[in-house]
């Protein structure tokens, strides 16, 4: 316990420097589970706490991080017509992806946690763990070339307006990560929609690596790679292959249906995720692994996931039946190959704070997200993908759903009162009748 004593000695004073104290407390409780004991109420508590809960969600998305980082590099080189096989140029793709994703991760966490710490110090409470998950989710749902200042702005908006204004972790109405994304989506639409933004480094194709943002890092890695005798990033500045558009499967499908998608991508490519898109949304199988992990550890609600799947499948089926546009004719099961359905299902819709909180409500909530998301995706020409908007929309309606579920419970109870009163008056009647 020597280290604990030492840490307590250097603990900043709460009154003199509240911010430093909060910061210290945050890191200290991260390193050491506190020594607090139960008082009043139960004497033994469950080993689960919010930190453990949140870290398991973060663990569930690690495969997305690994794949997403690599895929940034892969898409970049595929666009240039180099290393077209998935695993060739492995170190270049991996490091290219890491060079892109690490600044995004650092900025979103630095900004988000910074604001969280500031508010914790101001309100005088401990740092809450909410941003642990949001900070891990935000990089995965951004396009790889997102300018860092836009990212910082969106995270600040989401955390201040979306969360702290409502009272902090557990009080927010809208999903923080999605709020950050929707901010970029409406404030800076050119950076997060269209065909080019999903592939890193092809808009600024005439600039060399060195001249790009954080370009010096490419130089450092080239130096390392060349010392091993590996291929290097080189000067960059190559042109995109002829005819390469970078269109995502969804934008292809909205133009020409499933056949048109198949001219560019194969189903297995879409299933494994080697396609352009937001950083972490593509590897369907890995996301399903994550979702199963969350379900088995009972951290995320399987009800929401299942009902969202059912809702989306039914809507897609109905659209198949109607079949008036090529997009509507896409076989319902192939709708799941495209876009970010599984990511939204596993990590976004299941956020316990913003989802419906009753079991029945969860069924309704998930089902409606599936339905609305699919409608936005297929029928709305302006938005290529629907899950972000559908989830935010249903976040707003979740309390209403809960309200009606609870009202039903209250009515059941009230009905019981009426029925017992009814029975007793009946008894009185029969007794008086028997007297006569």
């Amino acid at each position, binding site marked *: *316990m020597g280290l*604990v004593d030492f840490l307590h000695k250097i603990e900043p004073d709460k009154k003199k420097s509240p911010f430093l104290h909060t910061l210290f407390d945050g890191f200290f*409780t991260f*390193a*050491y*589970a*506190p*020594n*607090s*004991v*139960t*008082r*009043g*109420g*139960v*004497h*033994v*508590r*469950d*080993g*689960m*706490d*919010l*930190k*453990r*809960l949140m*870290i*398991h969600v973060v663990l569930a998305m690690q495969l997305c991080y690994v794949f997403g980082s690599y895929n940034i590099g892969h898409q970049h080189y595929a666009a240039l017509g180099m290393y077209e096989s998935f695993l060739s140029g492995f170190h270049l793709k991996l490091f290219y992806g890491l060079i892109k994703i690490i600044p995004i991760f650092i900025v979103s966490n630095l900004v988000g946690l910074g604001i969280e710490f500031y508010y914790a110090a101001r309100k005088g409470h*401990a740092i*809450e*763990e*909410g941003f642990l998950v949001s900070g891990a989710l935000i990089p995965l749902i951004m396009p790889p070339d997102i300018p860092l200042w836009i990212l910082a702005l969106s995270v600040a908006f989401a955390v201040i307006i979306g969360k702290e204004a409502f*009272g*902090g*972790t*557990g*009080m927010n109405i809208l999903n923080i990560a999605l709020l950050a994304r929707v901010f970029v989506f409406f404030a800076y639409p050119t950076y997060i929609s269209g065909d080019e933004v999903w592939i890193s480094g092809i808009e600024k194709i005439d600039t060399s690596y060195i001249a790009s943002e954080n370009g010096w890092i490419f130089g450092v890695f080239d130096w390392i790679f060349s010392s091993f005798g590996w291929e290097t990033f080189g000067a960059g500045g190559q042109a995109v292959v002829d005819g390469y558009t970078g269109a995502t499967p969804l934008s292809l499908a909205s133009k020409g249906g499933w056949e048109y998608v198949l001219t560019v991508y194969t189903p297995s490519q879409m299933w494994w995720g080697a396609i352009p898109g937001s950083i972490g949304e593509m590897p369907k199988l890995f996301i399903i692994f994550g979702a199963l992990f969350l379900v*088995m*550890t*009972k*951290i995320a*609600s399987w009800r929401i996931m299942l009902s969202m799947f059912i809702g989306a499948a039914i809507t897609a089926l109905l659209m198949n039946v109607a079949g008036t546009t090529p997009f509507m004719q896409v076989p319902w099961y192939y709708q799941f190959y495209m876009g970010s359905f599984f990511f939204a299902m596993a990590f976004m819709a299941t956020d*316990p*704070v913003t*989802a*419906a*909180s*009753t*079991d029945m409500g*969860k069924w309704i909530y998930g089902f409606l997200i599936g339905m609305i998301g699919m409608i936005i995706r297929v029928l709305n020409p302006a938005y290529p993908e629907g899950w972000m908007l559908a989830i935010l929309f249903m976040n707003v309606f979740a309390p209403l759903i*809960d309200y009606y579920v*609870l009202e039903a*419970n*209250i009515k*059941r*109870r*009230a009905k*019981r*009162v009426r029925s*017992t009163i009814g029975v007793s008056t009946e008894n009185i009647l029969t007794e008086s009748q028997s007297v006569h």
Partner: protein
Amino acid sequence: MRNRITKFGAVFSFFVLSADLFAQGSATGGSNALLYGLLLIVALLILAAVALIGDSMVTVKSKELGVERGSEKLSLFPSNEEMFAPKAEGAASGKKVFFLKKGFDIKLEGEASYDVDENLNVSTFALQPKNFIGMSPIPKVEVEVGQEVNAGDHILYDKKNPSVKYVAPVSGEVIAVNRAEKRSIAEVVILADKKMNFRKLPQFDFEKSSREELVNYMLDAGVWPHIKQRPYDIIADHTIEPKAIFVTTFDSAPLAPDQDIVVAGREDIFQIGLDVLNNLTSGKVHISIDAKDEDPSTAFMNANGVEIHYFHGQHPAGNVGVHIHHIDPISSGEKVWTLGVQDVITLGALFEEGVYDAQRVVVLTGAELKNPRYVTTYLGANIGDLIKNDLKNDHVRLISGDVLSGKTKTQEQFLDFYEDQITVVEEGDEYEPFGWLIPSSARPSISPTFISNLIGTTYRANTNTHGEKRAFVVTGQYEQVLPMDIYPQHLMKSILINDLERMEGLGIYELSEEDIAICEFTCTSKQPLQMILREGLEAMREQE
């Protein structure tokens, strides 16, 4: 409605399946198969509709005639429960059992061995006014320090409710009246005699006297505080007649005593107690038995004049609140009374022997005890005497009751009035490096993220909170362990904003602290649910 849909589905599928037999003959139909198939489906639909209407008419007729089959309506079809409910084994086999799927058993080390130690010497006993919810903080004490009392002599009464007498559990000398904050009375301590002397009470024949005489006799004899009233879990109001009386014959809390051992040898007295209860209400007296128990005591199985119910499930399946919810729930304005097994025995002993007999079988449990076992003593026994020379170390918490809803005590303090259990657990006031991520020891949890949870061990739990208090984040967690049609988290929120109407609507009347305790245990946000619930109950009680 749901029942009707399943019935219809069952009937329809029966016809569809049997239709295959008829279809054998006309299989050569050829191109008209589709038409025949459709006709067949229509015919089956009509048949099913006829069957369903017939069923409804039977139900209506049976209601008119007052014919009922148990609590179910009479019907042509088996009820959902009859078809799909799991069948109980052991003592409850062939009987209707309430299977509760929700709940959680915290498996702790330190279970008591099944022998009862009758020679434990406890010298002091106490009556603690704070055990009685709603009692004014300074009750009138009728004895003085130094006075000799018999077991059953009046010790104190509540000035707001003077007819309910609280009596001495043992005979001896009153050695202290200890006071707590604001001069409130914490305990009246009695140094017990070696040989117990009882206050002689007149013999009373409860079968021949009126209910009012019976109540007055019980009030004077001091057994009244043994009857508790729901909602609020307070001392029963002697001026009213309850809708029903509930006695639970098993306790599912961690390390709780086996009531079969408690009642052993006093089966007849238990039955007399039940008979007395039957004279206190024109409603029913319900007792609930553990359907998991292979061989419940004959006192419970053969109880006369009461309704016997079987419950099967994990904690809180043994809580009387859960039983009331499933048997005959409390609605607004209704009152029910509840008693524990030993309270019924005290009641029975009064009418059998004419004395206030507060003898208790108490179970001493917990991983920090050298010799967890059952002991016989009296109500309000000194805790230090109970666990004398039995502690493995000093860094422990002594709990009167179980780890979920018991109270923290010191060695100088006493067993609470309604408790028959002492639990000793380790204090967990130590820092744990990365304890939230990599726990250094196995700990009980409902979360499958703990590997130990999957293999089913027993735990040597400590009192660490395992995390800090947070706002409500996780949902559906309380519902997962509370086998009642109640949404605890929303109820808690309505209490926190003091919305009385919503509290009532969401079922606060049906809960007491012990029912919600398991939810508090599981709470990821470490919220004090029992405290919040009591605040809500007090707010509701002020309205009456």
